[in-house]
């Protein structure tokens, strides 16, 4: 369907004997802001890892903007219009902030002429300018020699979003972008994502902070133990008995979960 930027069908993935993704299927509408939520260990990050080709799928198909990407090598998927941020920050520690963002441009610069263009010798070249502008748009300032390893967590987290954004994806996958951000930073992130979304990019966001989800997203899919248990609007999700049970094993409101600390665990991989 041309209306869907992404459609997943019958996705299966096991690690060893552990079934982590069990017959998951859902679609992401073009231009939508879809949330993928679920309790710790539900398999959300694994879905991202399968989508981006970190792991091969056991079964199932993934179609991105009309193209079957299930067997496309990981390095080529970004060219087809999909990029991501990581739950646990995966910036390049020895690269400057601007260079990290310029890595995000790589998919658009794979011709020999682009690969041999001396970025570092031409201050103010269009690639560096675009990277700096994108950072400024996100409310981030840079200075020369700024190595990302020394930056505060919240800043690094947003640099990740900028790096993913600058590849000009059709679909942006964000794995817990608001986790660890303070109120102000989360607000800035929200504004940034609104802007990205308004520019026509479809968002698929994994997020524990339900407040954030309610503010940003128009569609929600819920995973639990590798199975999709719900799909609908953010308004409906609170009232769904299966979802409430998944989160709490009881009928307490989900809103109380918004501060649940996201566990790191196996999410360290991709």
């Amino acid at each position: 369907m041309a209306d869907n930027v992404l459609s997943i069908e019958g996705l299966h993935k096991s690690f060893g004997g552990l079934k982590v993704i069990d017959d998951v299927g859902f679609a992401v509408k073009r231009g939508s802001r879809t949330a993928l939520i679920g309790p710790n260990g539900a398999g959300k990050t694994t879905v991202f890892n399968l989508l981006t080709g970190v792991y091969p799928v056991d079964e199932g198909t993934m179609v991105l903007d009309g193209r079957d990407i299930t067997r496309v090598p990981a390095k080529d998927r970004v060219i087809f219009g999909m990029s991501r941020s990581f739950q646990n920050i995966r910036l390049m520690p020895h690269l400057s902030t601007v260079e990290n963002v310029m890595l995000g441009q790589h998919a658009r610069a794979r011709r020999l002429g682009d690969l041999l263009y001396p970025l570092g010798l031409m201050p103010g070249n269009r690639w560096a300018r675009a990277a700096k502008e994108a950072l400024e748009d996100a409310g981030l300032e840079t200075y020369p020699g700024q190595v990302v390893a020394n930056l505060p967590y919240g800043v690094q987290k947003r640099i990740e979003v900028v790096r993913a954004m600058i590849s000009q994806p059709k679909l942006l996958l964000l794995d817990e972008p608001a986790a660890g951000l303070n109120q102000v930073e989360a607000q800035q992130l929200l504004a940034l994502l609104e802007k990205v979304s308004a520019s026509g990019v479809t968002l698929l966001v994994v997020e524990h902070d339900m407040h954030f989800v309610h503010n940003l997203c128009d569609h929600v899919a819920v995973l639990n133990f590798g199975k999709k248990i719900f799909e609908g609007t953010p308004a409906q999700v609170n009232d769904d008995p299966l979802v409430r049970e998944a989160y709490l094993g009881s009928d307490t409101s989900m809103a109380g979960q918004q501060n649940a600390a996201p566990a790191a665990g196996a999410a360290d991989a991709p």
Partner: protein
Amino acid sequence: MSGYLESQLIILCLNVIYAYGIFLPAASGQLNLGAAGFITIGAYSSAWINASGAPMYIAIPASMLFCAAIAFTIAFPILRTRGVYMVLATFAFAEVVAGLIINLEFLGAAAGYPVESHADYLVVVPVTILVVLLCFFLMSTRLGLAMRSIHDDEAVATLFGVDVRLAKVAAFTLGAALMSLGGALYGHHYNYIETQTFNVLLSIYILLYVLLGGTQTAWGPLVGAAFFTVVPEALRQIATASGHAWIADSRFIFFGAIIVLMMVFRPEGLVTRTMVDRAATPFGGGRSGAAPAARTA
């Protein structure tokens, strides 16, 4: 130029070229202990081509192409290995090269091989400068950025569209060509080569120059090779001049101590990325540790 200065300059130049040959793979995270192997191939192939009638300026590029072809071929199995296993694989490769040459009668076997054309410093120095410039250029390109990204996080580089295998093979192959160039120049300068000169100690030193100089910027191998060529020689000179032979005798202890201290205090090498950027913008740079924080926060 005095004979002594010239001889030191040549050694420095050769070490710099070798170092860049190891730096290119190191910048993308690959530890190559096979320098001696590539240098040997370069020295012998250029000498042989030269002896077969081709002038030096044909023989040297031809030897680089030959060495690059070999490197390209072995890159695929070797680059499947990682970390210390890659160190061992490249070391083994160099041993195989030495073992082959020493059994090849037409290359003089254990007796060594004379080299016809002579390259003096008027050849070696400009070529070295070109190599340095080429590497600075390369590291400033997007390919250089991709290589440094691979060094930091291969998986993430892949997800942003970097062809990790291609970049690694390119770095390894180009590095081998540079070492071949260094080996060829060595041969043409001294006009005599034997495999024993290019032993594992040479490979270790070159890898040390690079790791201690720093693999983050193209300054690293230059500073590393210069430091480790000049300091031991300076110590030797001081020993001779002052008549304190013990300085000369103990310079290897001193040298070893420097290496240990550097590994403790500058584990990322003498020259780091931040240092170069700060030096380039003495007034524009932000204070270290100053949070660049959000403008509007």
